[in-house]
């Protein structure tokens, strides 16, 4: 296990380096952005004196390296400061938004991975069947249709025409605002159906196609013949094959989760879901620097963390992986 510890330390050091790179690039980006933050924050009626005081307060008159080091420290401590246009701290807002985004993507992710795996594994096992061909064709179509198109279509049909489901939002105003409160609220689930299904319709195609091809590869393995020769039933053999075909899915799911986490800008806007993506777009259009910075930083951290977890998990599920 000494090998594993060394590996873990090395991976953590690498991750730390990547975080530093991201932070530095972000710092440069926001420095290069046209306009002065004070220009957005201040009113036309501010006197030059007041503007200078504000600049002082934000440390914008300090040398760049002082600003850079202060920025690094704040980011590492998750101290994102205060937004220009809201009262809560950025950290509090981020916590809310991250939770809301998770409330949309986690259920969709679970459904996509579980059902996508089953469908894909079965399709691969029954290669050449009607089921397999239908699964592949449907997946390719769903994968290619842009999600905003499916989203708007779903809204038109189920909300505006049939009036079965609410057109947007997460819970009505004054509804529950804690995680457990939301999960227990039928309102949340009703609001989740449309964006959730739109998300599943695209995300499920990845596991289907991946498992199918992975299964085809496993199907050629000698060990399946041996399982047959020792008298196992078809069901047990499929379990063995699927267990082997699952290996590449781990990395895929980690990457997919990262992309989902940062990629829900369109869906969150279409369905007025108060998540991280929507917040980022709003912050950028209003040039709300602290919020935009925090949102970008969190997205990067989540992606990094998921990749690390995937690598570690890979060693846990495939006994052939060693850390030497």
């Amino acid at each position, binding site marked *: 296990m000494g090998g594993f510890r060394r590996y873990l330390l090395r991976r953590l050091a690498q991750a730390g380096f990547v975080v530093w790179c991201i932070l530095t690039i972000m710092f440069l980006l926001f420095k290069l952005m046209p306009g002065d933050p004070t220009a957005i924050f201040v009113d036309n009626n501010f006197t030059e004196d007041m503007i200078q005081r504000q600049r002082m307060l934000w440390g914008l008159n300090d040398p760049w390296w002082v600003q850079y080091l202060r920025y690094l420290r704040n980011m590492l401590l998750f101290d994102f400061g205060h937004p220009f246009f809201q009262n809560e701290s950025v950290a509090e807002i981020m916590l809310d938004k991250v939770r809301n985004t998770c409330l949309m993507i986690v259920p969709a992710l679970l459904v996509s991975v579980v059902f996508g795996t089953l469908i894909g594994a079965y399709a691969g096992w029954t290669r050449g069947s009607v089921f397999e061909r239908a699964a592949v064709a449907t997946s390719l179509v769903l994968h290619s249709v842009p999600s905003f198109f499916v989203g708007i279509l779903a809204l038109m049909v189920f909300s505006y025409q049939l009036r079965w489901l609410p057109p947007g939002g997460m819970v009505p105003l004054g509804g529950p605002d804690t995680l457990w409160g939301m999960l227990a609220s039928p309102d949340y689930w009703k609001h989740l159906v449309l964006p959730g299904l739109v998300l599943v319709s695209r995300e499920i195609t990845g596991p289907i196609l991946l498992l199918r091809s992975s299964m085809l590869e496993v199907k050629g393995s*000698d*060990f399946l*013949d*041996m399982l047959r020769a020792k*008298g*196992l039933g078809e069901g047990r053999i499929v379990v063995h094959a699927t*267990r*082997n075909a699952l*290996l590449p899915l781990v990395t895929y799911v980690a990457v997919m989760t990262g992309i989902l986490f940062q990629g829900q800008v369109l869906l969150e806007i279409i369905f007025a879901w108060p998540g991280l993506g929507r917040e980022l777009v709003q912050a950028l259009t209003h040039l709300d620097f602290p919020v935009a910075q925090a949102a970008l930083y969190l997205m990067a951290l989540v992606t990094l963390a998921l990749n690390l977890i995937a690598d570690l998990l890979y060693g846990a599920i495939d006994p052939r992986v060693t850390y030497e």
Partner: protein
Amino acid sequence: MLALEGLEVRYATRQGEARAVDRVSLALAEGECLGLVGESGCGKSTIARAVMGILPPNGRIAAGRIRFRGQDLATLDPERSRELRGRRMALVPQSAMNAFDPVYTVRAQLDEAILAHGAMAAPARAERIAALFARVGLEIARLDDYPHQFSGGMRQRAMIAMAMALDPDLIVADEPTTGLDVVVQDQILQHIRSLHREQRKTMLLITHDMAVVAENCDRIAVMYGGRAVETGDRAVFERPLHPYTLGLCNAFPDLDDGGRALISIPGAPPDLVTPPAGCRFAPRCPFAENHCSEAEPALLEVEPGRHAACHRLDRIEEFRRRARDPDTWQTERKS
């Protein structure tokens, strides 16, 4: 105990149906060891798969019967056939390297082989598995390893242990020493031999190594292009009756006559989708006559217990003499 009667196995291929095994009849008595020899693609492994009931999806038994203890395996209901596999007959596979599922421990896979044929309490299973492992000379501590932690020889031993898990009557060993180094090959063969000699298992041993067959088998069948061309006891290699067997013997080193140069048979095995007319070996046979490409020779009893399928059995003494001469095999047959 096991009898193939006019067995015909076909594989669907893009070029058409390949007759991998063509009208082969063989019988194996209780406690006997039958060796199947021949080049790659001669149908010997297909016979193993057909007997075990694990033909690939594109393969089918087109004709004939496989009688095993009074049942016809060719037409047996899949569930009945599954019940026989592993319990009444077991396979020692061709490539032990890949015959274990890489993501389960060796113990789990042995356990599964036992559980596939009825419940047994966990302690009893553990005890049985430990005994099996000890019998093939593996350390019991290694049971919880994964297959990739085993060497090739250890894996093949574990395979033999797995084959013996439920004490089957028939062992089908399909090239059990392929891919192992010579010393390990010998150890594995000793284990296989002891299954046959000490535990009186009936055995179908498939290999292209004639020395292995000569050493271990009571009876021998030589296959060529999906057909059995010669059968008999050890004398098959001492006094071959078929020109193909003569060629095979030339191609293998002889311990008693180390100085003898090896002679290979020129040409390639026949196309099984459209096999040559007449004797399948005729296009490569240095002694072939026109008649050989026209009519197919039947497998006839030449001496008691000795069968061969050749039109010119009458000239076999001359063939044996001429087969020793490398030039005989060099001359391309003009046809």
